[in-house]
């Protein structure tokens, strides 16, 4: 009984209630990976919440300094492994700015489709786990059924289900076949009905409303100060969406709305994401129509660095570089000019930004990634204060954090 004696003895002596310290994670079913939270509880109410991160740290930024630009894309898959296509795009956009390459239109359209597919599959996984955390088990399996469909399409596109590495500097690796386009069309036709299915289960469910309404309310100002982005920020009523503000790929060609919430509570964020699912579906539809206009065009820019493509002629022997070891390139000059570039995209979780500095060598001199999950986790103590343990689970869910994305 030593534990309880200790808790009772350790009261602060000022007549204030003793706090109960509990360790949540890193092995806990609802911390979405390896997040560890040290909680101080007063009964079941959270007095203090202290997130500890780093259990999934792989040193992606440092690793990138020793890999050439195309190899870095494989690392990007492992950031937010639920929407790896979006990470690929962020990396490639930064590298393209550095190189001064513009991908052909077909490639940009395909990237937009892939990005939105990643968004849908990420949001489906979010809804599944969020609902499961709150206790609705059936929604979880319904979402996984539809995510499975999307993953099988991804498999047809690039052969991988989760870590795609599909996007390349200057375009994409492979063109869409007719089969993929037909399959995607079928998906976009049926998906709105599926969204309705989920909403029927939880949208007006009294218990769901009780668990999400007025939980973890963030007003617009606090949300901006905390650095929140993506659906979490839009749930607080700020219509900030990188796709609208700094359009990349083909987002300037397509129409879509940016849904925003009013109250900034967990339910609003849920609604925002559900609306985004519909918008993403619509964007995919528009892009599929536009793909017809660019039938047969290349999907990789002519001047794209052919670091890993077998179709181009490589030098038989790698050329030694005075500083950086071997340069695996078919071109005489350094592929990447010295300089720096910044690109940010609207990843499903929030704003994902990549800043890259080149010294003219084959590898990035420095690569810095700003991931939404890291910022969102830093907001948990603020949001959790005064809520109960059960709400903490909903808060982690509503922020939609992925620890691979946070720890890098």
């Amino acid at each position, binding site marked *: *009984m030593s*534990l309880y004696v200790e808790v009772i003895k350790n009261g602060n002596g000022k007549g204030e209630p003793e706090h109960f310290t509990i360790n949540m994670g890193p092995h806990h079913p609802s911390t979405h990976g390896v997040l560890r939270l040290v909680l101080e509880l007063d009964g079941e109410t959270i007095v203090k919440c202290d997130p500890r991160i780093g259990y999934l740290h792989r040193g992606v930024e440092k690793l990138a300094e020793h890999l050439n630009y195309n190899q870095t894309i494989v690392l990007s898959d492992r950031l937010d492994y639920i929407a790896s296509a979006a990470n690929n795009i962020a990396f490639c956009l930064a590298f393209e700015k550095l190189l001064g390459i513009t991908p052909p239109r077909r490639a940009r359209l395909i990237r937009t489709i892939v990005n939105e597919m990643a968004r849908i599959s990420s949001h489906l996984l979010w809804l599944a786990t969020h609902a499961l955390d709150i206790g609705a088990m059936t929604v979880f399996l319904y979402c996984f059924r539809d995510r499975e469909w999307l993953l099988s399409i991804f498999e047809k596109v690039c052969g991988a289900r989760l870590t795609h590495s599909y996007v390349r500097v200057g375009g994409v690796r492979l063109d869409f076949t007719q089969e993929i386009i037909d399959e995607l069309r079928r998906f976009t036709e049926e998906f709105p009905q599926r969204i309705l299915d989920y909403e029927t289960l939880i949208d007006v469910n009294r*218990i769901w409303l009780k668990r999400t309404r007025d939980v973890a309310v963030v007003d617009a100002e606090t949300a901006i100060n905390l650095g929140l982005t993506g659906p979490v920020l839009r749930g607080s009523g700020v219509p900030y969406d990188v796709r609208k503000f700094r359009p990349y790929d083909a987002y300037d060609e397509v129409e879509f709305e940016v849904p925003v919430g009013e109250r900034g509570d967990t339910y609003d964020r849920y609604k925002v994401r559900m609306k985004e699912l519909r918008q993403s579906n619509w964007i995919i539809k528009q892009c599929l129509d536009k793909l017809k206009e660019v039938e047969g065009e290349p999907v990789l820019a002519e001047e794209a660095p052919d670091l890993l493509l077998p179709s181009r002629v490589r030098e038989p022997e790698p050329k030694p570089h005075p500083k950086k070891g071997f340069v695996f390139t078919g071109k005489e000059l350094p592929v990447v000019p010295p300089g720096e570039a910044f690109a940010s995209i609207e990843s499903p979780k929030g704003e994902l930004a990549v800043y890259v500095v080149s010294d003219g060598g084959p590898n990035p001199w420095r690569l810095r990634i700003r991931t939404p999950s890291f910022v969102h986790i830093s907001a948990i103590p603020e949001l959790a204060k005064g809520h109960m343990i059960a709400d903490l689970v909903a808060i982690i869910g509503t922020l939609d954090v992925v620890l691979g994305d946070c720890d890098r």
Partner: protein
Amino acid sequence: MSDIIAQIPYPLLVFIVAFILLNLTLLHVAYLTYAERKIIARMQQRLGPNRVGPRGLLQPIADVLKLLQKEDIIPNNVDKSVFKIAPLISLVCAGTGVSLIPLWEKFVLSNLNVGLLFILALSSLSAYGVILSGWASNSRYALLGGLRSSAQVISYEIAMSLALLSVVLMAGSFNLQDIVKAQVASPFKVYLIPQVVAFFVFMVCALAETNRVPFDLPEAETELVAGYFVEYSGIRFALFYLAEYFGMVVMSALAVTCFLGGYAGPFEVPGLPFIWFLLKLYVLLFFYIWVRATLPRYRYDQLMGLGWKVLIPLALANLFVTAFLKLYL
């Protein structure tokens, strides 16, 4: 038949009946877990158990065998005697209730005059198993689970007793056999129709009493990992699991007895005396499973709010109206 029964010495008769009853209930509990997994799988577009035996029918047996083989881990810092006895308290309290349920006009193991009270007392006592296991585990998650459970059971016990009191008022007896007989004699044949409010309150409370979704807070997997039995393993874990399903069966059987007319049916089925009772029982058990597949989980304070602010006043008002009607009609 009755001559033969009359010749059996009484203690032996009790033993035989208890043996039949225990096996019947254990069979039901085992296959309730199977049915739950199959039905929920169906609702969630999965397959459910389908590997052990035809259509997975031997799965419950395989589960029990597996759990029996597992090492019985007792952590170092636990209060060993309490830790060991807690699952037994839960199981015995949950299981004993079966002996009071009249399965048939001529088949009830102990026809107690205060049968209803006895069942309520047992279900209150089963909370001790939960609290003690939470305390003895010397783990913070288990303690939180145990505390949640004690609060929950105490609050919902009140509403449940009040709902059952209306039935007692109508039947004029605490004896379960008499309650069934009074129902058959009443104009509607079942108390479900005049006591629909009490039935609703009772079913919600039964969900809470047995720690089922949407009131499965003591063992909320996503919050407390497993709640009060987080430190248990092997057969002791299985005992808690069994206790939960025993609780479901007993609560459903009580609902059948008190609200759905017990073993009485629209017509007699020759050779199958228990058929109506079991049919009604299965309908209620299906309800439990259905709820689990559909609803999210309440939050602790909301659960308390629901119990104290909605169910107890509702049950009280219902009791008052019943008493009034009983006096003046």
